[in-house]
């Protein structure tokens, strides 16, 4: 399976995701944002980081870069697209995913391992997880507070497009287990065709027992299926 990781000035999780993809047997290529041709890819990853120093709004400038037209074209043709952290923010700025990421409720940058629950395992991204499985996974962001209009929120709930919700160790989804103030504790969403996933937590940081755990592995093995 071929993957492409898009790199912007200020991306800083691009090597981590590339390592994770190679470890999981993807044939990966790095693609600089100024490119106008995307290599043939089954999966496009928009990595985490601080593209363009978060100028204007997180992801706003990267969302208008040259390669993005190609990403949008590929996504509309059914290519799988994964946006992690800043990548999720960029995907909302391109319009590929609806809603936006506001500043964390308590205005603090949060870098810690939290729990999320798998809300839909009938997708190409999550098929190897069990439904309601609880994952321990790292978040590191300042703008992760998911916000969308009430019509879209109703739609994603009805169509089962919420990928992950923040929860506690026992799986309770409530205000106490919501680290950043996201609506409905949303940590990740799909588009309506479920070929695009945007998520704030970092699965690429959870693929090796030596440095963390392996709760992110099944996301990549689902994609390989």
């Amino acid at each position, binding site marked *: 399976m071929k993957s492409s990781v898009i790199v912007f000035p200020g991306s800083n999780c691009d090597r981590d995701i590339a390592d994770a993809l190679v470890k999981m047997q993807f044939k990966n290529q790095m693609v600089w944002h100024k490119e106008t041709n995307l290599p043939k890819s089954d999966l496009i990853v928009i990595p985490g980081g601080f593209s363009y120093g978060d100028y204007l709004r997180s992801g*706003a400038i990267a969302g208008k870069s040259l390669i993005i037209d190609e990403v949008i074209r590929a996504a509309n043709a059914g290519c799988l697209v994964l946006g992690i952290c800043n990548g999720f923010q960029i995907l909302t700025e391109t319009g590929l995913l609806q809603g*936006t990421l506001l500043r964390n409720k308590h205005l603090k940058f949060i870098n810690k391992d939290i729990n999320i629950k798998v809300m839909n395992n009938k997708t190409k991204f999550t098929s190897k997880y069990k439904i309601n499985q609880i994952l321990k996974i790292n978040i590191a962001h300042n703008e992760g507070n998911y*916000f969308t209009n009430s019509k879209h929120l109703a739609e994603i709930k009805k169509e089962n497009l919420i990928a992950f919700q923040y929860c506690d160790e026992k799986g309770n989804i409530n205000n106490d287990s919501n680290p950043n103030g996201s609506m409905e504790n949303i940590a990740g969403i799909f588009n309506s065709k479920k070929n695009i996933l945007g998520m704030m937590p970092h699965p690429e940081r959870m693929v090796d027992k030596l440095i963390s755990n392996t709760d992110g592995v099944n996301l990549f093995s689902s994609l390989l299926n």
Partner: protein
Amino acid sequence: MKFSVTVILKKDVLDPQGKVVQNTLMNLGMDNLKSIRQGKFFEIEIDEKNQDIAQQKVDEMCKKLLVNLIIEEYKISRI
């Protein structure tokens, strides 16, 4: 031709920064302070003599990049 663009979070979107600034000013003794919303300000110069066309261009800039219409609203003024 010069324009100013003010971008501010919509009323129903929580503005924690504005709230913190407000609380701090109240701590400084500004008792009659009612509310503060924090926003962004752009000064834009356009090489165009026709005001309608220039204003249209600025509006396009707002919609394409400067403003996230999901959470923000904006106001354009000639300066």
